[in-house]
């Protein structure tokens, strides 16, 4: 269950894995370029670990806000035809998506 401590290094293999997770079909040339650059960037930003004190809570948002509500009033949505006209592919009243299931499914 333990994850190895961060080494602040990114290998070409790790970058390829991350690109897959992020749905980026990066090329070999990009992998070569990014791996080197990201390794340098990661080492630079790792300085955030200089902060140690336990009394430092994280800030997620500069302006503290919780449960912002608006009146529960029904309002018209955008017209369907206008929205679908901007989709890469539409069929009937819906977005048409690429094949989701594999051949054998």
């Amino acid at each position, binding site marked *: 269950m333990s994850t190895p401590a961060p080494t602040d290094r990114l290998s070409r293999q790790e970058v390829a894995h991350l690109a897959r997770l992020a749905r980026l079909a990066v090329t070999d040339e990009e992998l070569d370029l*990014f791996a080197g650059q990201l390794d340098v960037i990661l080492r630079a930003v790792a300085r955030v670990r200089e902060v140690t004190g336990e009394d430092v809570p*994280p800030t997620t948002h500069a302006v503290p806000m919780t449960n912002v509500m608006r009146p529960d009033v029904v309002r018209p949505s955008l017209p369907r035809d206008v929205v679908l006209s*901007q989709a*890469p592919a539409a069929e009937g009243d819906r977005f048409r998506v690429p094949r989701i299931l594999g051949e054998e499914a």
Partner: protein
Amino acid sequence: MSIDGGGAATGRPSTGGDLTTLDVATLTEVLHKGEAGAVDVTRSYLDRITAEDPRLAAYLYVDSETAIATATAVDEARARGEELGPLAGVPIALKDVVVTAGIPTTSGSRILEGWHPPYDATLAARLKAAGTVLLGKTNMDEFAMGSSTESSAYGPSRNPWDHDRIPGGSSGGSSAAVAGFLAPWAIGTDTGGSIRQPAAVTGLVGHKPTYGSVSRYGLIAFSSSLDQAGPMARTVLDAALLHEAIGGHDPCDSTSIDAPLPPLAECARRGADGDLSGVRVGVVRELGGEGHRDGYEDGVLARFAEAVALLESLGAEVREVSCPAFDLALPAYYLIAPSEASSNLARFDGVRYGIRIGDDGAHDLDEVMALTRERGFGAEVKRRIILGTYALSSGYYEAYYGQAQKVRTLIGRDFAAAFGGADGTGLDVLVSPTTPTVAFPLGARVDDPIAMYAADLCTLPASLAGVPAISVPCGLADGLPVGLQIMAPALADDRCYRVAAAVEAAQDAARGHRLLEPLAARAVGPEHTP
């Protein structure tokens, strides 16, 4: 001849009556009195865009027909004696991150090429309702990730002061347009400095409002906890007028602050009187002070020192202040912003809008997404998505993103300590250079992300803390503009405008003309040679 910054009737241009050289405060009076029509003004700008934009590449999209039609409607309404708002007929340019109904919006990316948004951003709707005339959409670094416009999928914009240099970024199309006199003012957005840095390197005024002061509804999201839209203008008063036109609560943005804006234009006018007696100014040591000058150019530090001396001569009480956590702002920002971006940009999946690549029946959904994003995103966007994906991944989250959020807390504490509590001893504003260097040459940093990120060194603390900060010109170094940054507590944007206006008025008076005036003259007419 100097131009009156107060918008009085005497504030006419010295460049032969060209309407494009008027500041907006003056322009609104000219329009109101009927000395020129909205169509005249709009046509002047469109002519100048036709002549100059092939060189500056400030705009991604210009719609002359619609602009003239809008301006015509304003002139007709005025002729009918209708009551018009003060900004009716004033042209404006919007950064292409702002969605505009029916008008192409790309955020500088291929992935949105050809997209016509089905709605207006709140700030676009407010500007439309105010009767402003949209000239077009300005270039930007892709998804606002960059400091030079060089990451735009559509090529870089150029700095009107020197066409071989960057106009700053990410709102570099807006800065090039306004400093190049291709728009009287423009909207920019600022996540880590993207309004202030381009304003600084082109000699403009640029203000990043308090986070939540201007609605984010309809801004294509980069880093949601940091993104904020704001004004870019040729004068402090114009910036204040534009901020007032777009600011205020919006129920469509849950992070929008439900409180009235302070009187910004009024404070800009008061500031121009030049009396800063009793204003307590802190000079941040970590932003160019003793022991923190690596990467800062001598010329920038010299202009900054003069600006500080000027503040003192105007009556301000100046003292140095230390904000130690500011040293970690850059590492924290370059974890937080990519992390939020990797999540925000997941919406570009080739299903609902934008381009789709590889949907030939042979590729499944995941493959089509990956091919679409590979083709649609540029290198900087990919780098940040990958870095953000890493920083948010299980097991590393605490070590990177969690730690960055702690830095954010410490930066907020440094600001709070400097501004002080209710005991009346705290500082009213903090100042620093806006950027460590003047505009650098195009291409100089594109292959070195860390060097590019360093352009944001001074602007990041205010972004991370959500406090307002303005950049106002404070002279030239090597013939290129230098910016003074003025930061204030959250919701005290009025202080930024007041102090900036005092600096602007004093420097304009000493110089005998506005900083941009040489550019106004240089850019007139299609015959000019660089």
